[in-house]
């Protein structure tokens, strides 16, 4: 090894510093710095709030904020106050209470509903956020709402007011994105303290002991420090929506249609831990949320917002959330409903004007109407216990604070639940039909017999819309109390002088049948023989007489048959007569059968009716022992299907298609342009039906269809309910089907018609023949042996209604009666033996006119 001395110059070959090392040395510093910064940023790189990487449902973080929430004090105003905006033209901001009335009025055209936050009232107006003094209304400050497309609302914690806005969606924003901003401003000056932006939806915050609870993405709840806006914890629901949050002294609650608690013992965002605070909101008209959505702006102008809402004052009972006073209130414009903790309806009230805001307080409900009336309704019975008229028309309002509704009855006892619901149902406000239908439904659940009379009264009023009538009809079907009222209602008939309408037989008869109410038989017989009974429901009336009657109905049925067996009234729709014949057979025994046979034998009845009755009278074939087939072993019961498919639905409707077509002809006369009738109803899992809808919804057509489908039953299925629809075309070319189904491989528009060829069975006489006497002359002569002797003078069927009793063409002779008939043989008796029952006369192969409905 060579030794070096200090004075020997170093050569490159002698030095240990290579170019690589020099290069590394030059770069090492910056690299080291960069590496350090990277490491540092990795440890502290989350956004202050709303960062997707922030861990949610973290127990440690949550525990800290839960302590603060539990310490939250009572920030609500002690007295009850209303802040509101007045209606056009001169819009103002007002504050009022029960004791003093209006405290102040300030001219401002508010875009948002006023918010009372401590000593300030906040409104957004014209792109600005303005604060007014809560005592006297003078303006305190204002600041522009830059970058705020829609103001959602604010919360206050001490000196900080935090509000959320929907930000304008940028050009590069993803579809469906809802960028939002949360800003904290100083309460005294409106100066910005901090702000947080996020590309996701934020909702109106709540505050509790230095914390801001901010709904986020509708699935989470971000808990921020109010001073600096740093996110401290995040709660996320696994299986529900977080649509709002409220902070109360010592706890907070949040949720969507159910409520969840953030309490001393923690929180849960799972449905299994939700609290049911009363009535199931999804069963109410308008399906209101438990609390207003924090993601919706609250308008300051007149709107429907807030007129359909639930109101509940929660309180903590141990670790459970319960409704104060055990009451949940539901306001629907002018109607107020109150429920207990189990969801049972307790009382209802009808107000003179719409309630635009309400608040559940101790002892009842405080509400304010559109006409500026402050009302207090008692929790027990809804009686009015306080009122203050402000004398202004209000557009939007919010009630703050606490108070107490006196318990004493000041204005006398309130009406009962039945009376309250009846008042709602009889109201004539056509905006509120859904709530009136709900009231009818609730009324029908009451067991008092008088309710049946109430339902009938509702149905019979001319101001009751058809939708409400259908609800009443469904309700009457299931009632089993107060049926004496239903029986009495049968006596109501048309009276031109008294201007009374006939009883709604399409509704009453099925109800009486379902209830097997035999007391109704005499009245049913009276209706059967009453000429004012609409033909459309006459068949069901006769059916009811037969089903509920006994041998005493045989004579009225025979009388009915005799009167009309040759009458043109039943030429097209002989259902009622056939049913009467069945009734005679059923209740009359052998004697009845003989009388029925005599009615056919004398040849007076129309050929069609005669042949039908002959079929009824024909002896049924009995199975001989030699030909008896051993019954196959019962097949094992098939499991119920989850739901009914199109074939099952269609089969049930098709079984009534013939009867339904009987409703088409009268409707076609009223409406020649009728192309089809659409039917929709709800099928329950037990096969029963309700909520029938018919289009077109003419009264006569609906009554006729209702009578035909009232006792229609579908096959059972497992659970739930489903909607069944059916289209009954007027044109013969189409076959009735729920919806047009494409044939496999359909490629052309005519394929459907090709795959559903038209079938014309023995077509009935076209409807217009009954109206045009000249057309009757073109009818072919009656078939021989039809029981009618043709008049050689005019080739017309014996019972052609077009044949005039006077005039040059004499009518066909009365048909010959059989000799030896039981009745005095005063009818025309032919010398020849009675002709045998004739087969149904085949109508001529007329042109397949498009307006001729298919017979079957």
């Amino acid at each position, binding site marked *: 090894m060579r030794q070096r001395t200090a004075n020997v110059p170093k050569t490159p070959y002698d030095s240990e510093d290579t170019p690589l090392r020099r290069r590394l040395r030059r770069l090492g510093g910056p690299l080291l710095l960069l590496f350090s910064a990277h490491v540092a940023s990795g440890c502290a790189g989350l956004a202050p709030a709303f960062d997707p990487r922030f861990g949610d449902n973290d127990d440690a973080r949550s525990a800290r904020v839960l302590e603060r929430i539990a310490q939250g004090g009572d920030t609500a105003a002690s007295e009850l106050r209303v802040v509101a905006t007045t209606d056009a033209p001169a819009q103002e901001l007002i504050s009022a209470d029960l004791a003093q009335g209006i405290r102040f009025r300030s001219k401002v055209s508010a875009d948002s509903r006023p918010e009372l936050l401590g000593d300030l009232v906040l409104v957004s107006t014209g792109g600005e956020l303005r604060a007014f003094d809560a005592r006297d209304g003078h303006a305190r400050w204002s600041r522009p709402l830059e970058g705020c497309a829609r103001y959602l609302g604010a919360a206050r914690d001490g000196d900080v007011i935090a509000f959320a806005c929907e930000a304008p969606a940028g050009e590069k924003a993803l579809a469906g994105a809802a960028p939002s901003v949360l800003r904290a401003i100083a309460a005294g000056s409106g100066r910005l303290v901090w702000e947080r932006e996020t590309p996701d939806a934020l909702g109106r915050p709540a505050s509790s002991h230095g914390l801001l609870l901010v709904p986020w993405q509708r699935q989470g709840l971000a808990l921020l420090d109010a001073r600096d806006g740093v996110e401290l914890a995040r709660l996320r629901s696994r299986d529900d929506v977080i649509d709002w949050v409220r902070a109360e002294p010592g706890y907070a609650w949040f949720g969507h249609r159910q409520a969840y608690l953030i309490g001393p013992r923690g929180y849960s965002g799972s449905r299994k831990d939700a609290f049911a605070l009363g009535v199931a909101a999804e069963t109410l008209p308008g399906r209101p949320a438990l609390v207003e959505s924090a993601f919706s702006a609250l308008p300051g102008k007149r709107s429907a917002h807030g007129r359909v809402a639930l109101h509940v004052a929660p309180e903590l009972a141990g670790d459970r959330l319960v409704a104060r006073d055990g009451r949940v209130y539901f306001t629907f414009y002018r109607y107020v409903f109150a429920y207990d903790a189990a969801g049972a309806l307790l009382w209802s009230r009808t107000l003179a004007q719409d309630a635009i805001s309400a608040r559940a307080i101790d002892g009842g409900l405080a509400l304010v109407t559109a006409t500026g009336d402050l009302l207090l309704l008692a929790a027990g019975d809804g009686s009015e216990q306080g009122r203050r008229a402000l004398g202004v028309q209000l557009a939007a309002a919010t009630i703050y604070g606490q108070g107490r509704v006196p318990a004493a009855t000041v204005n006398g006892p309130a009406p009962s639940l039945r009376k309250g619901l009846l008042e709602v149902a009889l109201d004539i406000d056509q905006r509120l039909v859904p709530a009136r239908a709900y009231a009818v439904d609730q009324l029908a659940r009451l067991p008092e017999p008088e309710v049946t009379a109430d339902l009938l009264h509702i149905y019979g009023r001319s101001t009751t819309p058809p939708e409400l009538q259908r609800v009443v009809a469904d309700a009457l079907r299931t009632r089993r109390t107060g049926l004496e009222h239903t029986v009495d209602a049968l006596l109501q008939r*048309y009276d*031109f*002088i008294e201007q009374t309408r006939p009883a709604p037989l399409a509704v009453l008869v099925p109800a009486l049948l379902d209830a097997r109410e035999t007391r109704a038989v005499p009245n049913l017989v009276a209706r059967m*023989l*009453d*000429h004012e009974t609409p033909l459309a429901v006459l068949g069901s009336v006769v059916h009811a007489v037969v089903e509920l009657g006994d041998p005493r109905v045989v004579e009225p049925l025979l009388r009915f048959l005799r009167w009309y067996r040759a009458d043109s009234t039943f030429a097209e729709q002989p259902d009622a007569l056939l049913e009467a014949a069945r009734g005679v057979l059923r209740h009359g025994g052998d004697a009845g059968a003989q009388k029925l046979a005599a009615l056919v034998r004398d040849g*007076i009845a129309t050929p069609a009716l005669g042949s039908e009755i002959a079929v009824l009278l024909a002896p049924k074939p009995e199975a001989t022992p030699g030909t008896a087939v051993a019954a196959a072993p019962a097949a094992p019961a098939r499991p119920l299907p989850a739901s009914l498919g199109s074939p099952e639905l269609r089969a049930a409707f098709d079984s009534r298609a013939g009867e339904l077509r009987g409703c088409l002809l009268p409707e076609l006369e009223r409406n020649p342009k009728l192309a089809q009738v659409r039917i929709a109803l709800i099928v329950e899992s037990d096969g029963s039906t309700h909520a029938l809808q018919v289009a077109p919804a003419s009264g006569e057509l609906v009554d006729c269809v209702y009578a035909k489908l009232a006792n229609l039953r579908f096959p059972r299925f497992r659970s739930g309910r489903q909607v069944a629809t059916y289209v009954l075309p007027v044109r013969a070319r189409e076959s009735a089907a729920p919806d047009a189904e494409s044939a496999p491989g359909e490629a052309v528009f005519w394929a459907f018609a090709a795959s559903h060829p038209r079938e014309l069975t023995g077509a009935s006489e076209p409807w217009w023949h009954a109206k045009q006497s000249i057309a009757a002359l073109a009818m072919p002569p009656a078939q021989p042996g039809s029981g009618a002797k043709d008049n050689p003078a005019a080739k017309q069927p014996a019972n052609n209604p077009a044949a005039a009793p006077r005039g040059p063409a004499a009518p066909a002779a009365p048909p010959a009666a059989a000799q030896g008939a039981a*009745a005095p*043989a*005063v009818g025309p008796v032919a010398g020849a033996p009675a002709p045998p029952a004739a087969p149904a006369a085949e109508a001529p192969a007329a042109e397949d006119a498009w307006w001729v409905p298919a017979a079957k």
Partner: protein
Amino acid sequence: MSSSRSGPWLLVAWLLVAWLLVIAGLVVAAPALVGRAHAQAASAAPEPKAAAGASPRAATKTLVAKSAPAKKPVSIESLRAALASGDAATAGAALDALGTRGDRAAVEVLIAFLVVGQADAWADRAIEALGNTRSPAARTLLTELTQHRRPAARLLAYRGLGQIPGAASDEVLAQGLRDSDAGVRGLCATQLGERNARPHVELLLRALERGVPEASVAIGKLGDADVVARYGVLLQRLPIHVMLGGYGEFLRRRDLAEATRLEIVARLGEVAGVVVKRFLEQLIADGVGKGSATFELALRETAKRIVEGGGR
């Protein structure tokens, strides 16, 4: 005058005279020719012998009576058989004949014919015949038939009831005012007026208000002074031609006090209008005012006062 000029004129004159003589002869001879025809028809029958002690005049009368074609009364059995004959014309004629008979037996035949049920045409004809009997025995079935589903049948039943006297028929006709068919309501209102059914004036007023225009005439026939006042209340609500129907009846009635009738005329004068003017003029032309100079003067003056082209 020369013969050549007067000849043709003489010929024409003679022809005219001859023609007139022929006509006169025919007129004189016609009765004799007819009498001879009757005599020939009766010539086959032996000449009736004059009864002992019978006067020649009586014998002549008898001869004349026997020479005329005899009308045989139709028996119920034959009518019943005719109904059962199967021939339309015969059966129809039988029904009409039964209606004309009007006796109890005929009513029973018609009732039996109807209760077994008939086709529309036959039922209607039988109902009409039953009404034509005017027999109280027909009231029960006619009342039942007022509940028939066919308006035409109900109409005929009510019409038939209108031919049967008695308050019971009035009661049923009053119920017809409530019917759903306008024709039935109108007929019943008219029948009540024609039958002098005063107890039902109140119902007729209500019917008029509801929209049965025929009730106005009936009210006019039946109402007293109080009814006139109540009738006048409807003057502003109902068409004038409907109201005039009733007023016409009121004004034609002599039993109504003149003061009431004058008040009506005055009221109509207030209404004025060409329709009212023509109405009053027609009353004058019909001689309604005769017998009371004051009333006639009121009619004339009121009609005269109404200027054409004004009022209703």
